[in-house]
């Protein structure tokens, strides 16, 4: 299967937050796009230049590069639905396509 989804995950060393983020996102991606995604994990401690170029302020920051448009989310990567919506990736649940950022915003403000 061709790689259709390309993502970068910025983490900081081996903090509990970094480890949890990595574990969560791998689970989410493998469930949603098994074999069709590529995830590059970047430690800001080892690659500060890359982090500066991408204007990283805090981690975990997840950036979706493909498919366009580029989208990024920051913070908690526990909730599969929120993560996929936040990345502007449509997730199909019960046959209905869920909305995009606006939907997330509603959830956050709740």
């Amino acid at each position, binding site marked *: 299967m061709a790689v259709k989804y390309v993502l970068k995950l*910025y*983490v*900081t*060393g081996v*903090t509990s*937050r*970094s480890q949890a983020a990595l574990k969560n996102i791998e689970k989410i991606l493998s469930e949603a796009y098994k074999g069709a995604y590529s995830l590059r994990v970047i430690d*800001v*401690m080892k690659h*500060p230049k890359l*982090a*500066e170029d991408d*204007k*990283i*302020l*805090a*981690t*975990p*920051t*997840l*950036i979706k590069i493909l498919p366009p448009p*580029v*989208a*990024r*989310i*920051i*913070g*908690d*990567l*526990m*909730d599969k639905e*929120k*993560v996929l919506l*936040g990345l502007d990736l449509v997730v199909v649940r019960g046959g209905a396509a869920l909305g995009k*950022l606006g939907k*997330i*915003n509603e959830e*956050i*403000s709740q």
Partner: protein
Amino acid sequence: MKKLANKAGQYEIDLQALKESEARFRSIVLWSPDAIIVTDAKGKIEYMNPAAERVFNRKMESFVGKDFGLPLVDGKSTEVDIFRPGKDPGVGDMYVVEAEWLNKKARIITIHDITERRKLEKAQSQLAAIVESTDDAVIGKDLEGTIVSWNSGAEVVYGYNAKEVIGKSISLLMPPVHPDEYKEFLTKKSSGELIKNYETQRRRKDGQIIDVSLTISPFKDTSGKITGGSIIARDITEKKKLEKVVVKARDAAEAANKELEAFSYSVSHDLRAPLRSLDGFSQVLFEDYANQLDEQGKDYLQRIRKASQHMAELIDALLMLSRMGRKEMHYETVDLNTLAQATLAELRQTQPKRQIEFVIEEGLAVQGDSQLLRVVMENLLNNAWKYTGKQPEARIGVGALRQGDGKRTYFVCDNGAGFDMAFADKLFKAFQRLHTPNEFPGIGIGLATVQRIIHRHGGRVWAEGEVEKGATFYFTLGG
């Protein structure tokens, strides 16, 4: 007209109020200790407050218009790692609210820097882990002696679990016989004094009295006021038991030694009496009945006498050796030079005609038992004197070698008969001799005595020699 003017005045007042209100809110944002980032609905950064520049160690200008991303917060807030180039990463608590910013939908992201708090928590949890992992009881108490903390070591040592004792008085652990001692502790503790390795007794939950070693230190608040204390208790019951066994064994050994001493004296006395008879009657027989004995008979009698005298000497030597091993040690400063001079002066008197060159180093002050060290010097110099007896130009030296670590090795050397290094290990054994009594008189007890004394000083003795080229005896004195 008047109405209009009133209205204008009203606007002015409203504008003024608005300005004041704005200024207040600007101050809040400018002076907030938390990083505040405002993004548009798509996550583009519109504003960062000064605290954000501090928290992220970067300038606002380079971030305005850049993508911060969509903050995902599970519940009220979520923790993020703060990336700040050139500094250690931090930890922040991130809060997000939906709001309006310049009449557009926006997100206000607040990041509360909890790096220091996390560090403190980490240090505290490490300390807590140490406290939990030790086998010692670590107990916290307040000024009234109420137990406020209780680790797992305390559960093992005292048999109570934390629930049973927290909130109770520490006197719970006191054995009935020590009420005053605790009061003493309280006074000491309130004076801020540290009590270290104080050995006492405590009572376990099961009533068993245990031996403990206590270290008690005061807790102080930031102003230095004592608010309580920590008690570290080590169960030394087993150690105490072992100590008792050791003391018992030592007492037994001492008793055995004393018995042996008594035995030695009685043996020497009892053996000597018949020896005296042997010697005495042999002499009487020789003197009174000489005419009835032929030459061979007389020779036999002389041999009997010699043998009995030799046996008396052996008994004396054995007694001497055992005395050297038992004598009580009195440490003082002893000058080996003085001891050597005195010994050699005595030796000279015994054989005034002998030509011997002495070289005795100055400043050989040592710490040791003067009587025992005198015996050492006498034995070593007697040997040197004896084994240089056939040397026309005899030389005897006494001195010290300084080792690298500042310790000294003392020596007595001579240019006498020497010995074969192959037999060096026999030198210090009692009654083992490398020469026959005809060559050099002696019974072979001197060096065994020397060795025993040196060992009692915690030192070592050894010898180097070569046949007909002399011998050197080295010794150290421990410490």
